[in-house]
């Protein structure tokens, strides 16, 4: 809650420092520790910058804490009983861990691993859910938001004639784009995606990657992925996590061509993971 908190970016590895264009920091993670009551720590003091209007990918082997990290960013981590989080996640000069999670989540939206449209709701109702559940009932406003969000999620043309059909009737890839539209409808500043394509086929995956590259002009995207090619395709910045620690953070092309840490090199060349 201290407005003078330091949000100056962390230094990047030497070679990347020069070509980076000047970008503001959307979220800054400082000394983040997280875990579950009675268990070993999952995150052991992570430092990380997330730059505005970019896509940042978080990669790393299973169990490295990448999902826990992204779930801390909008405090969905705490929705699990016994979860603990400590440190600083700065957003707009304030520590997210001190904010009301409900307020934070409106600014930091999330899309999950498996598509999870609300089963009782139509396509349009799903998209409008974030607004309706928070008390917006003006039909004109809702209709406008539904169309705009579905267009941003590249789903409008496929569903515009069946907005009243159930959301769960769509294909897996369409359902995931519906979930993206639903998250976009509340106009978050940051969109988190936790392995959004792991349940989808390559064509559906490609569509989601395309739309992520398009929407980053309007917001900041963070994506957890176990697919290094996906990180290379969509992300300007990549974070490599290993055993609860941030090993390397930098421009994606740099990390994949000239990693500065041996462990990163071992991982991206497929020596483990």
């Amino acid at each position: 809650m201290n407005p003078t908190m330091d949000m100056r970016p962390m230094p990047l590895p030497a070679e990347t420092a020069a070509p980076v264009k000047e970008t503001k920091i959307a979220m800054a993670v400082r000394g983040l520790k997280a875990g579950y009551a009675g268990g070993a720590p999952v995150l052991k003091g992570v430092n990380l910058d997330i730059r505005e209007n970019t896509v940042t990918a978080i990669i790393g082997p299973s169990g490295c804490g990448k999902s826990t990290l992204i779930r801390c960013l909008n405090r969905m981590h705490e929705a699990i009983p016994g979860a603990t989080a400590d440190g600083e996640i700065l957003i707009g000069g304030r520590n997210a861990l001190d904010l009301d999670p409900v307020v934070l989540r409106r600014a930091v939206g999330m899309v999950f691993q498996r598509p999870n449209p609300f089963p009782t709701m139509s396509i349009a109702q799903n998209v409008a859910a974030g607004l309706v559940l928070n008390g917006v009932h003006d039909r004109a406003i809702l209709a406008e938001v539904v169309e705009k969000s579905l267009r941003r999620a590249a789903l409008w043309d496929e569903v515009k004639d069946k907005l009243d059909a159930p959301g769960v009737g769509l294909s897996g890839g369409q359902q995931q784009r519906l979930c993206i539209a639903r998250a976009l409808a509340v106009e978050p500043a940051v969109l988190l995606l936790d392995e959004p394509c792991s349940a989808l086929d390559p064509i559906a995956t490609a569509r989601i990657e395309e739309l992520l590259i398009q929407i980053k002009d309007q917001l900041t995207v963070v994506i957890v992925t176990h697919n290094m090619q996906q990180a290379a395709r969509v992300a300007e910045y990549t974070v490599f996590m290993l055993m609860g620690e941030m090993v390397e953070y930098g421009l994606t092309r740099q990390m994949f061509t000239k990693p500065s840490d041996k462990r990163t090199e071992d991982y991206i060349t497929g020596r483990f993971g």
Partner: protein
Amino acid sequence: MNEAHYARRKKINALMFTLTAICAAVASGTLLAILGYIAWKGASSLNWDFLIHLPKPVGEKGGGIVNSIVGSAKVVGLAGLMGIPVGVLGGVYLAEYGRGKYAFAVRYAADVMNGVPSIVVGLFAYALIVHPMKKFSALSGSVALAFIMIPIVLRNTEEFLRLVPGTIREAALALGVPRWKVTVLVIVPTAGRGILTGALLALARVAGETAPLIFTAFGNRFNDNGWLNPIATLPHTIYTYAISPYEDWHNQAWAAALILMAFVLLVNVTARVWLRPSSGTSH
């Protein structure tokens, strides 16, 4: 594989299969036998007059059970109004917030309550309402039935809420929706059909309860008069008629049983058909 050994195994298999089939037939056959017997015995006394007239004085032929039908509807309806909200809200508490010792105690108490003999529940309602008011009443009968409904509805509601995937809850929370709104506007509606079905089945179950009504609703030969007077109910009327020494009353008891059973069956079938499209789970 030894030929003789194989033949023996096949024989045992056939035998055990037959045995299971027979047991299954006994289970479903009992229902059919009860339905058939009651329909056969009851149909002869069942006619339109029986449904719309009051009972005749002892010794006179004819008369109906309209007071029992109306009385059952009132007592069971009021029991539902009291028992369903308490059961549903308690179930929501257990499923959404119920952790620790208190929740364990509630769950345990509900399960024990489910097994308490219904006549004991009737005695409890007698002590709680009839005794202080010095009067048998529809209200006391409804309270007794509501006590029986609460644990059924509560546990059923909890079960169906637990079937709602955690990912749905997460999706709603991640939209910046407060926890209570997620519960009321997303989780409960998602489980809505199951919860409603459970409530209907609980209604059908208590509609047939007799013991809790013996010293609460008490019975009445005339049209009931408000909520604070003795009232006739179908199961209690069946009981009274069946133990009477009059042949005519015995026949009417069969007819009343047929009506009660048809009602219970109708609610059951409705509830189960309703449930099917929402999820594959049966109860």
